[in-house]
């Protein structure tokens, strides 16, 4: 863990979220017994190191009407997956795109692209556009619709003594 004790305390204080008040960093700093400027400097440093990607809202896309959520999965020729993955990831409607290992024989797919829409027809139309893009480099594909959010908490550190 590349965090010192103070960074760990800050992560632990913020993993549940930032308070929605006018001066949120001042409030968190007070809870941690630091001053606001010191906390802000620490947060800036964590951003520069990539530990914090951004400070923002995580919307529940189901509640926004994006009720169809499909994880599209593709068996793409290994020699072309880097180049084609970059093209799929650049599509405006793809929200996450990763190369992952296959789990043969059960799971032949090595490219995962998450697609959302207000209904399944919309998601299928987007899936067809990915299929066109991959063309002959794709041997098989599938789509896994999510039917229920079972847990969504984000990162939790175990507290250390």
């Amino acid at each position: 863990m590349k965090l010192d004790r103070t960074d760990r305390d800050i992560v632990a204080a913020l993993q549940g979220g930032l308070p929605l008040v006018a001066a949120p960093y001042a409030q968190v700093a007070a809870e941690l017994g630091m001053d606001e400027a010191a906390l802000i400097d620490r947060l800036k440093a964590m951003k520069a190191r990539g530990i914090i990607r951004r400070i923002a809202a995580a919307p529940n896309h189901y509640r926004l009407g994006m009720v169809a959520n499909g994880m599209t999965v593709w068996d793409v020729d290994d020699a072309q997956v880097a180049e084609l993955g970059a093209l799929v990831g650049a599509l405006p409607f793809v929200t996450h795109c990763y190369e992952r290992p296959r789990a043969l024989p059960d799971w032949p797919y090595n490219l995962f692209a998450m697609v959302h829409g207000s209904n399944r027809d919309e998601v299928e139309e987007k899936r067809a556009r990915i299929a066109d893009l991959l063309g002959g480099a794709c041997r098989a594909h599938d789509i896994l619709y999510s039917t229920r959010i079972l847990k969504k908490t984000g990162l939790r550190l175990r507290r250390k003594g």
Partner: protein
Amino acid sequence: MSGLDDLDRAILNAAQEDLPLTHRPFAALAGRLGIGEAEVLARLHRMKQAGIITRFGPFFDAAAMGGAFCLCAMAVPRADFETVLTKVNAMPEVAHNYERAHRLNMWFVLATETPEGIEAAAEAIERETGLTVHRFPKLQEFYIGFRVAA
């Protein structure tokens, strides 16, 4: 369906961008939208209470902290689903968990403080449930700018 008006949607879209590290960060967000800070805070608070915003705060990258993420999947027999779910969700390393329509019907993300923690957590789940945990760690990431247009 979500009961949001146009201003809620504008606020929610703006709130998915990075909040500044300043004394009054919501005033900056409000200024971009041409409204007051108190209005932004009240509406964000309401959207959070209503479950439209799941969480507001820093998005931590476990890998950059020396930790790791791993997508995992299990084929859970229908009759055992709720029992297995209780065991899996009880693990603090399980950050997200989704039910999906497939033979592999439970998909979750493990987030741990060390790369070794992934194996330990996956093995603990296998012991607890008697089911195989398929591990799908990312080999390459092609896009990370997750935003939902409200």
